[in-house]
Every structure is written in C-alpha cells, then in structure tokens.
C-alpha cells in the first residue's frame, strides 16, 4: 500500500518543530527515524498525517557525559548507540539491546527517541530505559519537563507525551563499578520482536528487572526485584510469574511467555554470576 500523508515540513530547530506541531492542530506527527511511523503510513494505519521532520536537528543527536549521568539525544540512532564508547561503558544494557533490534538497515535510521515515543511493548529500548530508571526530557509549547521512565509508558503505543510535545533526550545514571546489566530474550528469528525479553541490573543498592513483550507496556517486575534482593532465584521466578500478565497472540500464548520470563530471569542471573559483564 502507498502512504497518504497530509503534509511535510522539515523543522529547522526544536521551536520551529513545536510551532508546526501546534499549527497541525492534532494531525501533527513527529517524524524522526521513521522506521515505525513510515511502516504504519505505508499500511495506511495512519493517513493524512502532517509530518514534522525533526531528523536533521543535530542538537538532538549524540551521547554526552554529564558527570554522574549520561545524556542521550533523542535522535541518536540505534547504530550509534550500539557503537558509542560512553554507552558501552556506562549503559551496557543499551549496547546489548541494540544487537537485538531488527536489522542493520533499520538500525541505521531508527532513533532511540523514536523507539521510546512509539512505545511498542515488544521493543527493547523501552524496557531497557525502564530498567535503567532513566529520565525522559520532553519539550512542549509551555517549556520543558522531565518524566521518569516508570511514568512514561502508559499503554500499548501510548506514552505520557502530550499532543504537541517532542521527546528531546534521555538521561540516566552511569553504571557503577561492579554493576551488572544484562538483557536476555528469545525471538523466533534474529531481529524479530522477542516472544519475551528481560533486562536485569544488579547494583550494590539492589536489583532491577524489566521485561518486554509480556504486557501492554514494558513491565518493571518489582516482586522479582525484591526477591532477588533478599531471597533466591526460585523465589524471584515465582514472584515474577505472579506479577506479569502477558498477551496471547499468533506467536505464543500467555502461558508460554510467562514460562519464558522465568527462564530468562534464571539465565540473566546465571550470566551475571558466571562473571560475564
């Protein structure tokens, strides 16, 4: 099928983009890497969009060292996240996530901000960002605001981003010495959306577990986290199974996904305890 767009404008800066979104009066769509949006347009799931192309806004791209934090521009491409030395050192979960995202040509154009704003519950970045307890920075007509990852993902393909707002950047606390970050997932084929995936962080302050493909949003498994902090892996797996309610679809049933989540948790813990980073 052929896309049917209402109009296109290339933003010259963020304030221009915000002005154009306001002008579009509800039909505005922010076009970043376009790897999900254009696919949806080509399937006519979305027609008449007024596209505000922010993909050339260099100020929204790149990874910077902000002292205790890393700041990742929303337009930083997957491929750049994957090879960025700061990310590799201070947010290895994101580096690892990139290897699982689709295929090389998609990673060459897709952006982290686009992936987060799209909020596909089967995508890796939303779960990873949630696991990292990152902060999302949003600019709108009334200025900028920040939202914790835990409050950002609202429902399937739905976030806290409001009409007329643009996701600008993500900040996250740097990985500490001795901290472990791993991602485990199972997909039918390389690059496919995972049947289920799990991010695990072990810090001196405790564990964080976030899952993908097991709910309407990425899921923070607080029960499993608490069990890992104080108990055994078996207890964590048991807790995990009570706190997720995965969907059934043509690829797998809820029961399979629930089982898989437990397997992934065991594997993630084993990887950390096996001494692998």
């Amino acid at each position: 099928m052929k896309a049917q767009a209402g109009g296109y404008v290339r933003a010259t800066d963020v304030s221009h983009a915000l002005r154009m979104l306001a002008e579009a009066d509800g039909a505005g769509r922010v076009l970043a890497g376009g790897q999900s949006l254009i696919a949806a347009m080509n399937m006519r799931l979305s027609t008449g969009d007024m596209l505000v192309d922010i993909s050339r806004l260099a100020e929204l791209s790149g990874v910077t060292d902000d002292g205790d934090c890393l700041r990742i521009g929303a337009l930083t491409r997957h491929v750049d996240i994957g090879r960025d030395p700061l990310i590799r050192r201070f947010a290895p979960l994101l580096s690892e996530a990139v290897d699982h995202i689709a295929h090389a040509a998609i990673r060459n154009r897709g952006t982290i901000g686009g992936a987060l704003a799209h909020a596909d519950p089967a995508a890796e970045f939303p779960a990873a960002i949630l696991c990292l307890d990152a902060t999302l920075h949003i600019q709108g007509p009334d200025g900028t605001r920040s939202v914790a990852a835990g409050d950002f993902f609202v429902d399937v393909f739905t976030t806290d981003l409001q009409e007329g707002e643009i996701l600008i950047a993500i900040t996250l606390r740097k990985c500490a010495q001795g901290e472990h970050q791993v991602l485990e997932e199972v997909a039918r084929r390389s690059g496919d959306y995972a049947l289920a995936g799990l991010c695990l962080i072990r810090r001196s302050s405790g564990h964080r577990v976030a899952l993908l493909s097991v709910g309407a949003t990425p899921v923070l498994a607080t029960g499993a986290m608490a069990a890992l902090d104080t108990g055994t892996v078996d207890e964590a797996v048991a807790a995990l199974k009570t706190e997720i309610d995965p969907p059934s679809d043509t690829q797998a049933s809820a029961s399979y996904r629930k089982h898989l989540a437990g397997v992934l948790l065991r594997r993630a813990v084993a990887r950390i305890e096996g001494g692998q980073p």
Partner: protein
Amino acid sequence: MTLNFGNPNRPNSYIGKTVPRPNAPKLVEGRGRYVDDITLPRMVHVAFVRSPFAHARITGIDTTEAEAARGVLRVFTGADLAAVCTPWVGVLAHLKGLKSPPEHPMAVDRACWVGEPVVAVVATSRAAAEDGAALVDVDYDPLPVVTDMMTALDKDTPVLHPEMGDNLAFRRQHEEGDTDKAFATAHKVVSARFTTARHTGVTLEPRSILVDWNPADGQMTAYHATQAPHMIQTVLAKHLDLPEGRVRVICGDVGGSYGIKVHVYPDEVATAAIAKVMGRPVKFIADRLESFTTDIHARDHQIEAKIAVDETGKILGFDVDDWTAIGAYSVYPRTSAMEGNQVVNLCGGPYDFANYRASTTVVFQNKTPTCQYRAVGHPIAVAITEGLVDMAAAELGIDPVEIRRRNMYADDAYPVTSPAKMRFEGLSHHASMDKLLSLMDYDALRVDQAEARKRGVHRGIGIASFIELTNPSPFMYGIGGARISAQDGCTVRMDPDGSIVALSGVTEQGQGTEAMLSQIVAEGVGVSPSKVRIITGDTQVTPYGGGTWASRGAGIGGEAALRSAMALRDSILDVAAAMLQSDKSKLDIRDGEVVDADTGASRMPLEELGRIVYFRGDTLPKDLPRELVQTRHYITSEYPFAFTNGVQASYLEVDTDTGIVTLLKHWCVEDCGRIINPQLVDEQIRGGIVQGLGGALFEEIHYDAEGQLLNGSMADYLVPMAAEMPDMIIGHVETPTKESTLGAKGAGEAGTAGAPAAVMNAINDALRPLGAQVTHMPFTPERILRALGTIDD
C-alpha cells in the same frame, strides 16, 4: 549422432558441467525487467476493494465518492466485469466427483473469503487508486462462516455454496491389498495424528500483471509474472471472448514463483477485463497484504495415519486418512483437489509393502483458496510416511536407518508399481542412503549426540527418504480436460554469424532454465554456450508449451531443446557436406566450427557457412535444403510421471527450556537422473530444503474462528532467514530416465519434499529420551514445550 554422456571429454561436453547462468549478470546489476519495471504509454493502475468479511452478502455498492477522487478514472463492480468476462469452474474430469461453483473475477453478490475482490478502482497511479478504493462504500450483510475443516461436513455446519449441496469438494479413497487383515495380524501398529500448517509462497516479487488491449490491432498483450504463459493465454482468450491467437502473454523476469504464479487469479483476470473495457494498459501489482490474503495458500492438512509392521520391522501396511480444506473455491484450472490426491499417491512411496488404504477428504471453507505450491502434497506425504516409520523403529528398537534399509525397494527391483499404483521406472533408494550416511558420517554424529546428551544438551538426527513426482504427462491435467500442455517445444536456429537462438516453451523463474537450455543447445549443435541465446516467455514467439511447474523444465523442455538442437546440427551438416563435397558422416561440429569428425581438423567456421547460406545461396546446389532452423516437441509417453528419489538428514539441537530448535546441519542426496548443471541442481535443492524448513519450523497462516486472517504481514508470517538456516551438504546419485535422450528428471521440489519430515524426526529423536513427540507443524517453541509437558494450560 549419439551423445556419450559417460565420457566427460567428449566434444562439446556442456551437459553435466557447471556453467554460469547467462541471465545472472544483468540481475546483479539491477538490470532485470520485472512486470512492475515496465511503463507503457497511457498506462493506468488498478487497486481492489476487498471483502473484509469471510462470508457476506453484498447488499449495496456506492462508488460516487471514489469516482470523484483526484486521479480516479473509473470504478468497476463485480457485475460490471461479469458482463464482459465469463466465470470459470475449477474442476477436472479425472478427479471424479470434484465440484466447485462458478467463480467471477470479482464477487458479484456474495463474498466468500477475506480478501476476495469486490470493487476495482482505476486511477492514474497506484496511490490514487488506493485513495479511491478507500472511498468506496460497500454494504455487507454477514453470513454464517465455515472455517474448521474437521466439522465442515457436519450436519449443523452451514453449507457454503448451497447449490453444491454440501461442503465436500472432493473425496478419494484408495485401497490395495487387505489392510484390515494386515493391521489385525501385525506385530505392532503405530498410529499418529499429523498436522501441516496453512502456508503461502511469499514470492518476493508480488503477483504482477500489466495488460494492454489494443482495439486497433485487436490484440491483447499481457506482461505477466507467470509460470505458464500459454495456459494464461488460453484462459484470457476464453473468458474475455477473444481469439486465442489474439492474446499474447509475455513473461520476462519473474521474482520467484514456487507454484504461486501458475494459477488463475480473479484480480488478474479482472485487470485484463478492465484493460479490454478501457482500451488502454492497466497494471496490477499486489501489495504485501494482498499477497498474504489472495496468493494461493497450501498444505492445510490434518491426518490420522497408522503403520503396521512385523517383528523385523518389515512394513505390512499404511492406513492414511487425510483431510484438507481448500477455501471457498477450487482454483482454476489446476483445481485444489490435486494436493490431497498427491498425498494418497505418495504415502509409503519409498517402501515395498502390500497393504495400503488412503483417503483424502477435501472440503470448502470461508478462507483464501489453496492450490498447488512447491512440492505439491509431497512434504505432507513424506512427513506421514517417515514419521510413522521412525515411530515404528523406536517401538521395535531398530535404528531408523536400518528399518528403512529393510523396506526400501531394492535398487535392482525396477520397474515396479507401488501400492498407490504409481509406476517407478528406476530409483536408487539404497545407493542414495549409502551416500547420505557417508556424507554425514552417521556413526560419528550418533557419538556426538550421545556426548551432548551427557552434558544435558538434546540433539537429534532425523532421516527422511522420499520420492518426487516430476516430468508429468497429460495424465496430470490434460486427461481431465484442462488446456494445460504437458508437451513442450523448442525451436533452434542458426543465424548468419553462426550464433544460435533457441526459443523454448518452458519459462525462467530464476531457477536457471535459460542456463540449462543454453548448455543443452550448445552441446546439441556443437557451439559454446556463449554463442546461444535463449528466448522464453512469449506466447507469440516460442513454441507452444506448458511452462514451468511440477519439475518439468529440464526433463521435458530440455529434451525438446536437445532434439531440436541435434536436428539443427544435422541440417547444418547437410549444408556443410554439400559445400565441402564431403561425406556428412565424416563431418562434425565442434566449438562453432565444422570439423573433420576423425581428426577434429577445422573445415569451416559456422559463420562462413552462415554467410553462404544467407547471402550466397546461389552457390549451393539448387535443390539443397538449407533451412537452418528446426523445431521439436517432446512429450513423455511410457510413464505418466518420472519419479525421482532421495533422502535427507537433519541434525539439530532442542533447547528444552525455551523450545527453540537450532538447525546444526542438513544433508540431501538426490537422484534427478541426468544432471545438466550441477551447481544449478544443488541450488535448487538448497532453496527447496529451506522452503521445507520454513514449513517445519516457522510458516503458518493463522485465522480466527470468523475467518479473519491474523498474520498477513512479513513480520507475522515467518519465513526462513539467513541467521537460522544451516549449511547444507548435497550429494547425488544419477539414474537417468530411459524415456529421453537427455535422461533428465526434475529437481526443483525434492528439497521441499523431504526437509520437514527430516526435521520432525530429528526433533523427535532429540525428545524421545524425555518421552515427548511432536507431529504438529510448524514445530514452534511453544508446541515443543507443550509436548514436553513444560506448559500444560
């Protein structure tokens, strides 16, 4: 002239050698010419409004808004096209009892599957046509749906086509020997229920047609991605009321077909009808959603089957009850009963046994029609047969290789007629098995498997022997009344510069037809393949033929090419003998020159002979025949089909925590008779294997109970990709058919025939110590964990 294939050093020995494909360089440079690459003056585009319901009465169509949309030129309803195009019925006389209602190019008052075309919107671009299609307002009154095959014949299931009386399209029951007695007295009877999933072909190039009707010439030209141009010519002429001679079908580069593009599709006929009405070129290129909902589906079978064996593992009988559901119509003109029919023909194929009962029950339902797709019926029959043989071997504690050795027809037993009444001219099951075992180092693999098991790693080895039906005679379609040609022709001519042009009725779909033909013609005439140009895919240019299906290109088209090339060689030598005042028997043609047959000394290059014949014919004896063009047609006559055989093996690992299967390696030994181009044959086998692996592990069309297709995208219908596929070792045994000079049988479907069974048997070999077994394809991670009992809710 005779060809001594046994001597690799014979002159012009191109048959049997790997030579590059003449059409590959253009394709790697993006210089192919697929239908969508063609733009004609005044060309317009069509998009279809398709039924969103699996079954619904069409109660009203409002096209006003669509007609007013920018770029839209005209809108057609089913009734509009019914006025210019007669309906068709997909039945064959020899498939007794097969029934199907008349089908129109677009639904007239009732839609019977999701995706059936209802309205056509013609516009200046595809995008504009889609915009217009979105504005068409169709009122539907939903009707009860039939979706489940096993209850389709129940009394309380609605009848999809009331005029047909019931939902039974076709049933065939075959009985040989005394099956009841064999099973009653057997040492062991093993039974199982098998399911093969609904597949589709996923050709990378979607279905594509561009039809130009030129009323001034009174000629229709269809540029069509098809496997059977002459068949399409006949169909368009017949249903659009044109003389057959005034329909020309041109088939250039085709982006994959695998059987998908050998059928008559309602939207493609609609495109031709619209072109005839509008008097200008109309292009239809299916988009990917249309591909999933309207390309034919296949392989949707459920089977109850059992095997009876004696104490030694000797097979006493098979009993097979196959069911399949074919969608709303039997597809024209090949029909949708052929797949089930093949299951009956092929079960038990490699084995010498006496008692056979098999039936196939083919029912209608409100889904996309199914029809012939690569290796029609074979993967199903091989899975049933080889699955049961392995289960019997396990019951008896016999090695899977050994039980096969005890039952396969001896290599010197031929000709034989199987319990399914298939006639085998010459097969090589034992030689093929020997070669397979040595290629895979079976004993070493068993050691590796045992060692892995000690580490808690579950690996399995699966073997699958098979037969493949190739080189079909008119017994496949022609006797049933279909104008589908089993014969094929080739015209070979020499031009003044000594170059050779060959026109063939078989078509190129990427499998290497043109390379194979160029080798045959080169050897037959006595020139280098680079001197031969092959022309295929134009009904107004090539001899009449069947095209490419049922692995017939090399065996039928190749033989026609060889005979015409050898006839041309003979004509050339007649002229040469006169010119050189030599005895014809003392002359030969080698590498483009007339030579002395004994010494090989050059007597005259072909371009000199061409110069004389075409420009100085006055210097030749007045009554000397000098036609440097010959045509031969070939049809098989001794056997209805040339069966091939082979055996495959899969080595894989099952992750019993996740259910994921990792393919480690795959082997296939195949006997397709004379091999013309070893590389092309190997690649046909590899590509075929991977399509079979798709069926084993990934491919499955899902519908809900209302007949809605749930996974109509490439992201949701999974086909094999590079990362998950294994390396494949291919070996050959050559048992040429004696029916032809060339001795070639087909090779295009063997890979697909055997791969799913090999994988199934390998998974079950891995799972057997855990007490689990899978028989429901594809073997998804979830199905494997359910078999293991890991998930039970």
